[in-house]
C-alpha cells in the first residue's frame, strides 16, 4: 500500500501529463508550420534550378503590387460580407418564426437543418448540376417567369453572386440553429413582464431578445466569418476561380500560386496576410465572448 502510494500520480503531475499529448501535437502541427512559413515567406525559390535565395520582405512588397492578389482579397471580402449578412438576417428571421408554437413546427426545424449537414463538396456539385446552362433547373425556373437564362457560375458577371447564393443556401441553417438555441435559453420572465407593461413585438425583440442573444450572435458570426474567409472547396469545384478570376478567393489564389506555379515563398507570404486577417477578426470576437463569459466554465 505504501509502495503504491509512492508511485501513484498526484493531481499536480497528472494535470500536465494529460495535457501533454494535445499540446505537443498541436505545437508540432501548428507552430512548426508557422515557423516554417515565416522562413519560406522570406525566400524565393527558382523553379527551374531549385535554388533558394533570401529576399527579405520582397514577397510582401510584391503582394501589394499584385493585381490578382487585390482581386482575390476583394472577392473574399464580397463573398464574406454579402454571405454572412444575408445568412444572419435570414437565419434570424427563421429563428424568430420557429420559436413560436404551431403545428408541425419541429418538422420544419429538422428539415431546415439539412443543408448544413451536407458535405460542402456535395453541395458544390449539386449546384453545378442545378446551374447547368441549357438543361439546368435554375434557368428553367427563370424561363417559367419569362426571364432569359443566365450563365450563373460560368458567367464573369454572375459567377461570384452564384457562389454566394450557394453559401447562403448551405449556411443560413447554421445561423438559424445557433440563434434559435440562443433564443430558447432566454428565460420567459422578462417577456411576461413586458406583456404586463404592454410592450409591442418590436420592443420585446429590441430590448429583451436581442441583448440576451448577444453570445449566440457573436458565436454564429465568428464561426461563419472564419469559414467564409477561408472558402475553398465550393469555389475550387464549381469555378476553379474563373471565369477570368471573377471568383478567385484568397485561399484559391494561394493554392494556385503554391501548387500550380510552385512559388512556395510567395504563396506562404500571401497566406500570412489571410492569417493576420482572420486572427484580428477572431480575436475581436473571442475577447467579446470572454467579456460575455461564454466559453468559460
Amino acid at each position, binding site marked *: 500500500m505504501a509502495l503504491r502510494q509512492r508511485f501513484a500520480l498526484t493531481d499536480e503531475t497528472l494535470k500536465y501529463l494529460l495535457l501533454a499529448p494535445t499540446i505537443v501535437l498541436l505545437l508540432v502541427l501548428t507552430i512548426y508550420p508557422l515557423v516554417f512559413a515565416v522562413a519560406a515567406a522570406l525566400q524565393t525559390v527558382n523553379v527551374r534550378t531549385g535554388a533558394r535565395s533570401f529576399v527579405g520582405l520582397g514577397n510582401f512588397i510584391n503582394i501589394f503590387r499584385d493585381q490578382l492578389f487585390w482581386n482575390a482579397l476583394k472577392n473574399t471580402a464580397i463573398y464574406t460580407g454579402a454571405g454572412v449578412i444575408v445568412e444572419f438576417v435570414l437565419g434570424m428571421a427563421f429563428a424568430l418564426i420557429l420559436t413560436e408554437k404551431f403545428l408541425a413546427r419541429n418538422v420544419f426545424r429538422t428539415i*431546415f437543418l439539412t443543408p448544413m449537414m451536407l458535405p460542402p463538396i456535395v453541395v458544390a456539385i449539386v449546384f453545378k448540376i442545378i446551374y447547368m446552362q441549357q438543361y439546368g433547373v435554375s434557368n428553367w425556373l427563370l424561363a417559367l417567369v419569362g426571364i432569359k437564362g443566365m450563365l450563373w457560375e460560368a458567367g464573369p458577371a454572375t459567377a461570384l453572386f452564384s457562389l454566394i447564393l450557394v453559401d447562403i443556401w448551405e449556411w443560413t441553417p447554421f445561423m438559424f*440553429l445557433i440563434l434559435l438555441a440562443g433564443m430558447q435559453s432566454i428565460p420567459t420572465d422578462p417577456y411576461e413582464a413586458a406583456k404586463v407593461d404592454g410592450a409591442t413585438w418590436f420592443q420585446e425583440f429590441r430590448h429583451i431578445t436581442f441583448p440576451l442573444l448577444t453570445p449566440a450572435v457573436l*458565436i454564429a458570426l465568428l*464561426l461563419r466569418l472564419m469559414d467564409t474567409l477561408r472558402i475553398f472547396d465550393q469555389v475550387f469545384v464549381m469555378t476553379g476561380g474563373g471565369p477570368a478570376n471573377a471568383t478567385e478567393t484568397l485561399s484559391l489564389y*494561394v493554392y494556385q500560386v503554391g501548387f500550380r506555379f510552385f512559388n512556395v515563398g510567395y504563396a506562404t507570404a500571401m497566406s500570412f496576410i489571410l492569417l493576420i486577417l482572420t486572427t484580428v477578426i477572431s480575436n475581436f470576437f473571442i475577447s467579446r465572448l470572454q467579456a460575455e463569459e461564454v466559453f468559460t466554465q
Partner: protein
Amino acid sequence: MTWKVVRYIVLLVSAVIVVFPVIWVVSTSIKNDVDIFAIPPILVPQHPTDSRYVDLWTYGLLAYLLNSMIVAISTAAVAILIGTLAAYSLARFRLPGKWSGRVSFWILSTRMFPPIVTVIPLFQLMRFLGLVNTRLGLVIAYTAFNIPFVVWMMRGFFVEVPKDLEEVAMVDGCSRMRAFRSISLPLVVPGIAATAIFTIILSWQEFLFALILTQTSASATLPILVSSQVTQYQILWGQMGAAGAITMVPVLIFAFSVQRYLVRGMSFGAIKG
C-alpha cells in the same frame, strides 16, 4: 391573409428550396443521359439506371470508400483518445495563474487557422517524412485539426459531471485515475459518441488537405472522387451525382443521429442547446 397562413406558405416554400437539391443529386445519379438533359427537367427518372454507380465501381470506388472509412475512423479514435485526456485535465484541474484560460484559448485558436496557411508547410513536412499519398499522413493532419474540437466538446461534458462524485470515490480510497475511469468516463460516454461522430463527419468531408496530400487512389478519399468527375474536357454529370450521393448519405445519417448535440457541436460546446 392572416399571419398564420403566410407563415405556412413561407415555411413550405423554404422547405422545398432546402430539400430539393438533396433529392436532385440522388435523382441525377440514377438518370441516363436523355433524362439528365431533358427539358423541362424531370424529377423522377423515366429510364432509371444504375450505370453511373457501375461506372464508378469500375473507376475504383471501393478504394476511395475504404480510404475514407479508414481515415475517418482512425482520426476519430486518435483524436478522441488524446483530446479527451486534455479535456478532463482542463475541466478538473486549474493551472497556475491564468494559464487554464490561456491554454484553452490557445487550443481553440489553432482551429481558427485557415487551413491554406498550414497546408503548404504540412505538405513539405509530409514529403520529408515520406507520408504524402498515405492514409497515415491524412490521419495525422486530420487528428491535428480535430483535437481542438474534441477538447472543447469534451471539456463541456466533463464540467457537467459534478466534481463531488469523484471526490467521494477518492475519499473511499480510489486513485484519481480510477475515479476518472469508473465514474466520470462512463457518465460522458454519450458525449464521447457524439464527439466521435462529429469528428468522423469532419474527416469524411474534408477536401483541401485530401487534395494536396493525396495524388493516387492509395489514399484519396471520396471528396476527391467527387471533384475528379469534373474533368478538363467534360463534366460527367451522372457519375458526379452518384459520387455525391455516396459521399452524402452516410453523413446525413450520422448528422441526424447526433441532432441532439448539433448546437453544441456546431458552436464548439459554447452553447449547450
